[in-house]
């Protein structure tokens, strides 16, 4: 029983990590007023870059760094189109998904002789037990024998909270997402804040992708991300655009997945088809939203292009 609980927790944490990272990325972008449908693409680019870097340098940490940089780089087109050129943010985000997946798979095929996937990474990030804590019963083995990316994700949630709600930068970022004209009249550079928000989202989503490809997994192919970016987007909305809300939402989702998997392992499949069990996380999410989460209030200026002095 206790073991099962530990197991469920461990799976929860495993599943939560990439979602949490990407959704935190989305948080920064959307809090600044720029919708980011492109999380899927940014995760893809991060996953790809991390694998290639690690294959070349045998240093997965470097992989994380380049994944963040690549995520940032690929968020630039989205930023330029939707902030400078005032393109519709949804349009631009969709284009970003096309671009990222296209470029990543194109490069894989070009680099690895037409193969649709990279070779296997040997030097993946290993789980990192935290001495002492890992021995706490039940939660220790689940939470404190996790991947470095998991710890990173949790730290980012807390840093994200502090940055957004305690620092001038965060306050300005949120102001820009709520009422850019107001921020502008207070001397805040709306464009710069939005660019920063989008770039941070690229970095974090890239990191999220990397956590899938070189920590949990060990290679990259077209299906490495397979919809996780969209679930991260859902997590962001579910978490009401708040760092702790996002933490809660991604934990909820991870937990639902863990329950579904556990259901199979304890033999529920004799009674319920495994397809039905696998639907569970998605059904639970809808129920949770319909039942008690309900209306989420987006940043007021989200999705709206901004023009200096415009109204």
């Amino acid at each position, binding site marked *: 029983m206790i073991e099962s609980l530990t197991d469920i927790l461990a799976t929860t944490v495993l599943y939560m990590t990439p979602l949490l990272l990407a959704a935190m990325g989305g948080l920064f972008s959307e809090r600044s007023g720029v919708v980011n449908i492109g999380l899927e693409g940014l995760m893809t680019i991060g996953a790809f870059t991390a694998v290639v870097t690690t294959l070349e340098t045998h240093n997965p940490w470097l992989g994380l760094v380049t994944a963040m940089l690549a995520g940032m780089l690929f968020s630039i087109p989205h930023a330029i189109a939707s902030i400078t050129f005032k393109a519709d943010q949804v349009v631009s985000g969709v284009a970003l998904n096309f671009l990222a997946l296209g470029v990543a798979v194109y490069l894989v095929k070009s680099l690895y002789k037409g193969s649709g996937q990279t070779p296997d990474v040997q030097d993946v990030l290993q789980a990192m037990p935290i001495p002492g804590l890992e021995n706490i019963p039940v939660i220790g083995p689940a939470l404190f024998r996790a991947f470095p990316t998991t710890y990173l994700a949790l730290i980012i949630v807390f840093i994200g909270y502090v940055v957004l709600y*305690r620092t001038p930068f965060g306050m300005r970022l*949120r102001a820009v997402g709520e009422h850019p004209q*107001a921020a502008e009249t207070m*001397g805040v550079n709306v464009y710069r804040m939005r660019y920063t928000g989008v770039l941070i989202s690229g970095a974090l989503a890239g990191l999220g992708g990397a956590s899938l490809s070189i920590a949990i997994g060990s290679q990259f192919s077209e299906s490495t991300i397979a919809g996780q970016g969209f679930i991260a987007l859902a997590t962001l909305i579910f978490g009401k655009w708040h760092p702790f809300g996002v933490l809660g939402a991604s934990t909820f989702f991870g937990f639902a997945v863990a329950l579904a998997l556990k259901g199979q392992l304890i033999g529920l499949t004799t009674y319920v088809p495994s397809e039905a069990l696998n639907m569970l996380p998605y059904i639970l999410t809808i129920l949770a939203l319909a039942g008690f989460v309900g209306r989420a209030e987006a940043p007021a200026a989200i999705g709206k292009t901004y023009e200096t*002095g415009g109204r």
Partner: protein
Amino acid sequence: MDAVEMKGITKRFPGIVANDGVNLKVKQGEIHALLGENGAGKSTLMNILFGLYQPDEGKILIKGKETEITGPTVAGELGIGMVHQHFMLVDPFTVTENIILGSEPTTNGMINKRRAEKEVQAISDRYGLKVDPRAKIRDISVGMQQRVEILKTLYRGAEILIFDEPTAVLAPQEIDELIVIMENLVKEGKTIIFITHKLKEIMRICDVVTIIRQGKFIGRVEVADTDENRLASMMVGRDVSFTVDKKPAKPKDKILSIRDIRVQDSRGVDAVRGLNMEIKAGEIVGLAGVDGNGQSELIEAITGLKKVQSGEVILNGKKITNLKPKTITHSGVGHIPEDRHRRGLVLDFSIGENMVLQTFDQKPFAKGWSLQYPAIHSYAKRLIEEFDVRTPDIHTPARALSGGNQQKGIIAREVDRDPDFLIAAQPTRGLDVGAIEGIHRRLIEQRDKGKAILLMSLELEEIWQLSDHIAVIYEGKIAGWVDPASTTEEEIGLLMAGYRAGTEVTS
């Protein structure tokens, strides 16, 4: 010395010259009015002074020194602060957060909230601007929001303050408070540029007026040397009459009666608490009151947009309580809504499409499932001509019309449906005197045609001029009925503030 001098400012927008060689000279320590019709270019000129726009031509001198104001930050450094026509406040933020945004006091890189709150408190005490530093903007009154706007400029040490139509959104008491504040500010040595459409206010507190019309500089006059009529004709370019011509009302049958209704606001708190009211054909009932005393909820309840918790609304002898908005509309209610952008128009529809917002599915605008555009267009054309809505054509999006013309469009739509009962909520908010004149005439015309009209306005003067009876609303109840002919402004003011004055109270 001149605090501000703007010389030959020209600003072009695609297709329009918003400012065309405008001059503005403001002396240190004066209250300088900027007067002009809707769209005359006042806000544009001030946005240039505040650095939000760059002029295409012209020079700006601040305290005698030529400067280039490239952004709000530069303006701030020059001691210029602006209270914008449309509030620039971040709703979910607190008062303090809004004030410190952009120049936050920090310790170790973190915002020092406590210090900020103290500073805000100190400044608000000094100038007599009562605010709660910790309240969220979305929870405070419009008046307090405006004080926050003023505090924002003072917090940055502004010496020259621009007030762009600050009184348009305020109740009479709040206007009085604001005027006191402005006087305090001038006493402290600040300079104020004040935009308003209300000539009374100019006469009351300003020293000098600059008038612009259609982007052009018309003139600069000392308030002491002029009067309201002369200002109005300079501004509009023709004579304007301020007195509303109206014959005595000839009230007939009872059209609307409201019995003991209760309505909740959006937070679920009772906003209307057992209110009674009757309106007869051929009369205008004015609903006076300080903003937030249940006026909006009352109107939304009558029109079916909000649920009536108890009590009933009867129109022409039939109960319309809690019917669907559509049914209520079709049973003879017209509604000029308080917020024309939120409720009154679909801004992305053409002005023509907006003309049939309630009737699009009726003959002759629709045959069965299919819309009849020829009928819709000819109808819209007729209304636009009849009500003098200035628009290039009926296909222009409503968004591109000026506020006054948008409002005329709404009035055209509501009046032309020929309802027995017409609700006019703040029908002239933010409009210039020319536009106001026309709208007032329309309302009187409707009354004389035998319609029952409920006029809600925060502007006492408007209510005064138009109403045959005035109902003063206070905390969700009618505090008293007064006859405009035999009551003084003080008496109404007292009722609005919650003091019951014995004799006039009839219901």
